[in-house]
């Protein structure tokens, strides 16, 4: 494939370069403090990808929704609810249950946004709150079992040919999403709907179902992330999804997906996720205080978007 620096590819290239910069900066730091360069070890990188896979899968789902010009703020508690219900059910049914929860939440979000036409920003926020309420009520009322099942543990922790299974799950999700986006009518319809819903509708695309589909994918992705995270922590717990919402949005946007929909490539989201994960890790290694960390985050996002090239001015 030829890499031309089109407007579409520029974010991907720039973000990849920045990933390199982060690694170099981190290595410079560890060299100067401990004299070693652990950041460049395969083990460290694999571990980053392993812990990054949760965010990566959330971001993949989020990207579907953002491509439509919508947003899914219910990811944190969809993830948590899927994980908690799954462990409560336990056994072989655990993972299907988690996916079921993801599908249901996605359907609900999709119906609210596509049929009732409530702005996704507010509807998914409400759904998130409701899910949190449900989980509080469930924990309070039923004291559900929270232990990860063996399959979850396997998916999150075991290695297959030396590669953590979580990374393989992420890769599988990525392949599905990337194929969906580039090779199927659904994917093309997603871009069309995100670009201009009215025109897509008049072109005979069932835009409502496209929207619902995207939200369902987002819900399912959050559920998969929940399953993995449960395996990784060996249990499900309240608030386990809280750390994923804003980084997921940031990863998608840093990957060059347009926040108003219609444009973006999945590779970009992958690079965006890796960028965020490494940035986090390096800042943590540098023992950067929270204040500095927040400021750096903000600066990185603004700086990168400025480099990507500014949006067009609306003149007509």
């Amino acid at each position, binding site marked *: 494939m030829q890499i031309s620096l089109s407007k579409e590819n520029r974010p991907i290239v720039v973000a990849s370069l920045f990933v390199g910069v982060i690694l170099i900066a981190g290595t410079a730091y560890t060299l100067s403090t401990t004299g070693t360069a652990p950041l460049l070890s395969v083990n460290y990188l694999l571990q980053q990808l392993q812990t990054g896979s949760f965010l990566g899968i959330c971001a993949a789902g989020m990207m579907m929704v953002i491509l439509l010009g919508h947003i899914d703020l219910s990811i944190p508690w969809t993830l948590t609810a899927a994980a908690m219900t799954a462990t409560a059910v336990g056994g072989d049914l655990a993972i299907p249950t988690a996916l079921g929860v993801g599908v249901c939440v996605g359907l609900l979000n999709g119906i609210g946004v596509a049929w009732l036409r409530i702005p996704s920003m507010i509807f998914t926020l409400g759904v998130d709150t409701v899910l949190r309420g449900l989980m509080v009520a469930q924990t309070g009322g039923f004291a559900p079992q929270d232990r990860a099942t063996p399959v979850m543990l396997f998916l999150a922790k075991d290695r297959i040919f030396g590669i953590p299974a979580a990374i393989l799950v992420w890769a599988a999700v990525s392949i599905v999403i990337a194929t969906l986006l580039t090779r*199927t*009518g659904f994917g*093309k*319809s997603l*871009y*069309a709907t995100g670009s*201009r819903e009215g025109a897509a509708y008049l072109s*005979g695309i069932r835009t409502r179902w496209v929207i619902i589909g995207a939200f369902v994918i987002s819900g399912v992705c959050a559920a998969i992330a929940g399953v993995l995270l449960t395996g990784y922590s060996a249990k499900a717990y309240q608030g386990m999804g809280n750390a994923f919402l804003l980084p997921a949005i940031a990863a998608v946007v840093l990957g060059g997906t347009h926040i108003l929909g219609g444009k973006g490539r999945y590779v970009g989201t992958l690079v965006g996720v890796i960028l965020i994960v490494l940035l986090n890790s390096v800042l943590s290694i540098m023992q950067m205080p929270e204040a500095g960390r927040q400021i750096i985050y903000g600066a990185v996002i603004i700086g990168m978007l400025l480099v990507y090239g500014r949006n067009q001015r609306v*003149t007509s």
Partner: protein
Amino acid sequence: MTEAIVEYRGVSKYFAGIRALEGVDFKCRPGSVHAILGENGAGKSTLIKIMAGVLQPDAGTLLMEGKEVSFAGPQAAVNAGIVCMFQELSLIPDLSVADNISISSPPRRFGLIDRRAQVSRAEELLARVRCEDVDPNALVRELSLSRRQMVEIAKALGRNPKVLILDEATSALTARDVRTVYGLLGELKDAGVASLFISHRMHEVEALCDTLSVFRNGRHIETFQKGEKSEREIVRLMIGRDVDAQFPPKPDRTGEASTTEPILEVTGLKWGNRLNGIDLSLRRGEIVGLGGLDGQGQKELLLALFGVLKDVEGDVLIGGQKGLPSSPATAKNAATRMALVPEDRKTEGLMLDMSIADNLLVSSFGKISRGPFIDPGRAAAEIRKGIAKLQIKIGSADDPVMTLSGGNQQKVVLAKWLMIDPDIILLNDPTRGIDVGTKQEIYRLMRELANEGKAILFYSSDYAELIGCCDRVSVLYGGQVVSEQSGDGITEESLVAASLNIGVEAA
């Protein structure tokens, strides 16, 4: 000879290397109505956008009343007395009529906007354009398209223009409003105002303008007075070659009508207060026109047939099946496939920032997919076929469709629909804002499609098109078919009369 009020000297403008205007010298005199003619993409809009301060020239100078000027933005141009009316574009739907009329320089009291003064100012100006029926406090979004254009005109008048520019700004006006506008332009002309008029409709140009300028490929070709050249010569200047017969010949269909079964039959179609019992039938191989003044239910009829409207009543038979499709998707996928070329190609027909290829394929994923996956080979073949069939002028199929000219954009919409091989084609004013050459290609295509056995329902705001293209014409008035004409019975006279819902004798 009077001094030019606006003068261009060697003005050039490029967009990412594409030439929009090059070395243009152009003058316009006060007290004239000046037509700017040219194909799509000839540079007309660019020319006036520079004058209106929307764009800055890359080279050359702009002079106003002999002095060099440079407008940083539309406001600067307005302050200098250059007022521009863009098609549907510069009214704010969520603000009131009065707000819109005094939008950028409202009357003030103690530094704050004086609402009452603003309303009375709006009332005055609305009276000047004979739109006393428009409530100054109504939101613009509540008004019909033709009322909006009249408000736009009132707004322009309120800015005391020295130069008034109308860029395809009269497309939706009713006959009465057009007369009002003609009158107003006359008044302004007498008052020494220069009016620049852009339209693709020759009869409007002929009725209104005294001076004509022709542009082609970003260059100013010639300026001349009305009557100096024939219409044929003008068209040749515009497209750089001769044009022959505008419309392809109609096949003789006498006697056929009664024998073939209609593919589409509608009786008593009702929807809200817009459609009040429409009866219509359409056969394969036929082009049926929808006539009438703008806003008499033609668009709603097309949308209803395409499954966009809810709660439509009436009996419908499509290809022998009862009932309307429930959505465009079902209309497209039914046994009798339908296609609709919508009114506004930029918002309803195309995903402007997606590629030409993606826009072409958007209605035919089913056809080019194997299982759930798109077959890239078949997709590429279809794209090639579509582009070739309509002779769409493109660089690469991966360019955004936005970079095409209006006519080529419209061709993309048509090609998209032809890919599904529709049985019924609904066309909503497909040639609006399109130049003569492209129009001709579209007319020819329509006839070809009809001859292939497709049925075409064709709404146009241009009588000439209806006369030249259609086998039959149904004229709508107030949501009903008031007259059906066919063959040689379709004449401008009869169409106008039917449009106004008066007997032919009276017209």
